[in-house]
Structure formats: structure tokens, C-alpha cells
């Protein structure tokens, strides 16, 4: 499972999460794992803007419900670019899985290490 670049630091991970404090603590935790955080951003428009602007994204953590707006369109764009992503949600993970297109879904709260593991296979 070990890829040559797996342990290399400086992976760039996009965080989309509407709650400031959740986003903030997730960003801090990711940084502690040596990850470069893109964002965090709180809505779909800003996420799409970031993706359009940044050439390099290695992974993304997407909160499903952003103050009533659904994040799935961000996932669709990432998939076309071959970027791995995971969903986090306050909903039942199984009810989200139907729209997730095979991407892993986690019910909140979820330890950041699990998210990194799901994205890159190790941490």
C-alpha cells in the first residue's frame, strides 16, 4: 500500500466545513500531521474557486451540509481531476453514501487521523 510519495510531507488538503470552530480545529490537527491546509472554506462557491485557482490538491475533506447547501458538486469536480476526497456529515453516513459516488463517509465528530488514513491510506 506504500506509495513512493506517501510519507513525503506537504500534502495539500482542501477543507470544506461550515462551522468555524470545527474547521479551525480540523485545520490545526491536519497541520500537526504535516499537512498543508487549503482553506478552510465554508461554502461551495469558495471551494470551487479554490479548486479552480490551485493547481495542486492532493485530497479533500468535505462536510456534506454547508448551512443547507450540499457539497456534492465539489466532490464531482474533484473526481474529474482524480483527487481523492472524503465526506464528513452530521447525517447518517448511510443516507449520504447514496450520493457520495463511492467516496468514504464519516459521521461527525470524527478523529482527523481517520480522515487522513482514508485519504492517503496511512498517516
Amino acid at each position, binding site marked *: 500500500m506504500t506509495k513512493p510519495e506517501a510519507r513525503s510531507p506537504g500534502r495539500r488538503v482542501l477543507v470544506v466545513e*461550515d*462551522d*468555524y*470552530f*470545527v*474547521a*479551525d*480545529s480540523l485545520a490545526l490537527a491536519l497541520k500537526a500531521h504535516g499537512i498543508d491546509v487549503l482553506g*478552510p472554506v*465554508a*461554502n461551495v462557491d469558495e471551494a470551487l474557486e479554490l479548486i479552480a485557482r490551485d493547481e495542486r490538491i492532493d485530497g479533500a475533506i468535505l462536510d456534506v*451540509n454547508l*448551512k*443547507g447547501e450540499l457539497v456534492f458538486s465539489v466532490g464531482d469536480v474533484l473526481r474529474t481531476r482524480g483527487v481523492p476526497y472524503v465526506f464528513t*456529515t*452530521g*447525517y*447518517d453516513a448511510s*443516507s449520504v453514501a447514496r450520493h457520495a459516488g463511492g467516496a468514504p463517509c464519516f*459521521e*461527525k*465528530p470524527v478523529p482527523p487521523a481517520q480522515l487522513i488514513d482514508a485519504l492517503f491510506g496511512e498517516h
Partner: protein
Amino acid sequence: MKRTPPTTMGRGKDADPIERAKRIEEELRQSEQLLRLAMEASSAGAWNWNARTNESNWDDRYHEMYGFAPDEPRTYEGWLGRVHPDDRPRVVARLEAVLRTPGDDEWNIEFRAVSPRRGVMWMHGLGRAWRDRDGQVLSLSGINLDITARKRAEGELRESEGQLRLFFENAPSAVAMLDLDMRYLAASRRWLEDFGLSGDLIGRSHYDVFPEIPERWKAIHRRCMAGAVERSDDDSFERADGSVQWLRWEIHPWRNAIGEIGGLIMLSEDVTETRLWRERQQVLLDEMQHRTRNLITVVEAIAQQTMRATSSMDAFMAQFSIRLSALSRVQGLLSRSDRTPITIGALISMELEALGLHSGGPRASVEGPNVRLRKRSVQTLALAIHELATNAQKYGALATENGRLSVTWRIERAADGDACLALEWIETGIVQRLDRADPQRFGYGRTLIEKALPYSLSAKTTFEVGDREFRCSITLPLERLDGGEVAR
């Protein structure tokens, strides 16, 4: 009576008149015997009326059928007395018409008679008139058949058919009965109502009534016609107008008296409404779960932020529980928001009142137009206002005798037409000795306002701490929503 036609075989014998008379007599006797047998088999009674003598006569069976005593005379008047009064005019009119009208020689009539022994009976009267060359009636003769049993059976059949029809029509569910050609034999009113039909379906083809029936269902009908019983708890029926009905249905074949399949019985229940409710319930449940989970992450964040700014467990508990109270007040507001939309004014009043302050009092003035808040922005905004209010009470304008709090808001419109809700929180007359750098005073609340509101709600905020003054402004973008403007 018909004359026996001469036969070629008998021609030789006819030469002897005595032999011929004997033969005729014998043939007549046989013929009479046959007639009697026929009369007995049909249980008919025979009668005759002679126009010349105006005499009536009838046989014993007729006499007995009408319930006459053996010694009662056999007269027309006696018979007429036994005809049911309601049918008498019709029967007399028919006989008189025959008497008057040469060529109208036969009658065939049903009427009721009343026998002292057997009560009301139904009679079938058949007969004919015999006329002379001028058309004058010589005699009338006829037979009567007792058809009471048949009439009763017919009535019972009609009644049970009527009851069946009533049962079908009034059945408290949608039921239909079809024949082998899928034509309606019966349908309940509910069937008509559920499928939005009107008029009489009887005799019409199911597939003409519902041209939109899919091949899939026709196949089911064919299987049921072959003896299958099929049902579905949840099946969609796309109607011709494009709407979709959800049905629970069951189809059985029905069998006639000798066990052959005579067609189908269909039962259906429109579960569209039930389905909608179930879906709505699921949405509500999902939403509840989402809200609960999110609430837990919010509580987690509040705990972390509070922990960061407190030095002892006691201080933490005190702070934390006050913040949880604020959070639970917002939940109450949110759960009532379907009936009572949440306005910025209501939110501010609620937070001030929770601290024992009245927004109309001398120390605090609260003023602004009615602006509805979007549900999803309420929680963060309420927590921010709670932080402002508790800080004012602990360290700010409401902690001193001469302090004053003014909370005002208005709708501001930019040149491009976008509207904002601009709120100003101003505290004056604050005692200077309060430590501006007190981390507790500006910890969580300040982060909420300076970071969380811009991040989550795209708000613009300022947070200015002066020596004797405190100013905070929050500008929230407004959205146009069902007629009114709502804070995002």
C-alpha cells in the same frame, strides 16, 4: 284442437265408417291423455268461457289453484274476485281488447291472484279466442300457470343482485369486478373517487377507462385470469396526466358456480399520501439527527474554547454551563421557528432577558426594523449575541451604574441592489479599570465575532475596545426570500 291429418296408410280402413269412427275416437282419447299429461306436468289449470251462454267453466286443477272450495260455483265473477285488485283493471282490459278486436286472438299475461289459502300468487295466463266468420267471439279458452315460485326466486335474485351492487358501491375501499373481457361488472364509489373517474363504468373496458395502464399490469391481469393471485404493497401508477399515484393492490380471479374463472376482482388502496408522509417523516428524522450531531460538534467547540480561556475547573464549569444555556435557548427558538419566524429583535431580546435585562429599560435600548433570520444563521448569531450580552454584564456597560447599552440595526442597500443587515452594539460609560487584555473577556466571544461570523455567515464585523467604550458592528448579507428579505 287440431284435426288429425289423414294418413295414406289409413286410407284403406276409412272405407268402413264404423272402423273410421272408432279410430278417430281412439286417436282423440290418446290426444286427450297426452294433453292431460302435459297439463299435469306443467301444473297448469284450464278454463273456458262460452260467449253464447255466458257460462264459465274450468278444471279441478284450476279450481284448486285459486283456492276455491270444492262446492263453490265456477263463474267469471268468482274468478275476477280472486285477481289481485291492483292487477284486475289490466287483466280485464286485456281480455276486453281480445273480445273487441278480431285478429288479436291470443294473450299472454302475468298477474297476481289472491287465494284465501295461499295468499298472493303470481299467475301466467295464456289463451286464445275462437271466432265465427264475422269475427264475433264464440268462446275464450286458456290456461293459468302458477309462477309464484319463479317470481319469488326472480325477486330474490334481483334483491341479492341489488344488495351485491349496493355492497360494491358502498364498500369502504376501492373495489372493482371485471369479466373475462376486462369489462366492468361493478365498481365501488371509492374506486371512482380514488382514480378521479365519473359516470357509469359498468360494461366499459378497464383498458378504455385507463388507457395509461402499462403492459406490465396487463401481464399481471393475464396471469390472474389464469388463476394467479397477485398483490403489491407499493406500486406506482403513472396517470395519463403525468401524475403518479402510489397504490397498494391485490387482484384475484373470481369463479362462477361451476368453478370456472369469470373474471377479476381488484382491490386497491391509494397510498400516495401515506408515502408522502413517510418521506416527510424521514426528512424530519434526518434533519433531527443532523441538528443533534452538529450540536454536539458545537458543544465540543464551545468546551475547547472555554477551556482555553479558563484556568480552573470551577471557572470552566461556570462559563461552560452559561454557554450551554444560551445554546439550548436557541434550540427552543429554532424548534418553534416554523410557526414563529425568528427575527433579529427577538434574538437580542431573548439574550438580554436571559440576563434579567429588559430591552425597553433605561440602561439598554434596542431598536430596529423587523428582519427575519434564516434558520441556519440563527445559532452562530445567537451565540455571538450571547457573548456580547454576558460580557456587557460582567465587564461592560451593564456592570456599572452609569453604563448604557445601545443595540440598533437597519437595512442598508448597496448601489448594486444587494441589501445588508447592519447591526451596531455600543456600550458607553464603562469603568476604565477593567482590563482590556483580560483573555476571558474577549476570548471566545471575540473569536466568534471576528472569525466565525465572517467565515460561516459571510458577515463583515468590527470589534473595537476603547477605554470607556465598546463598539461592535456586524453586517450580514440579506437574501431575497419568499417576498421578504432574510438575513443569510
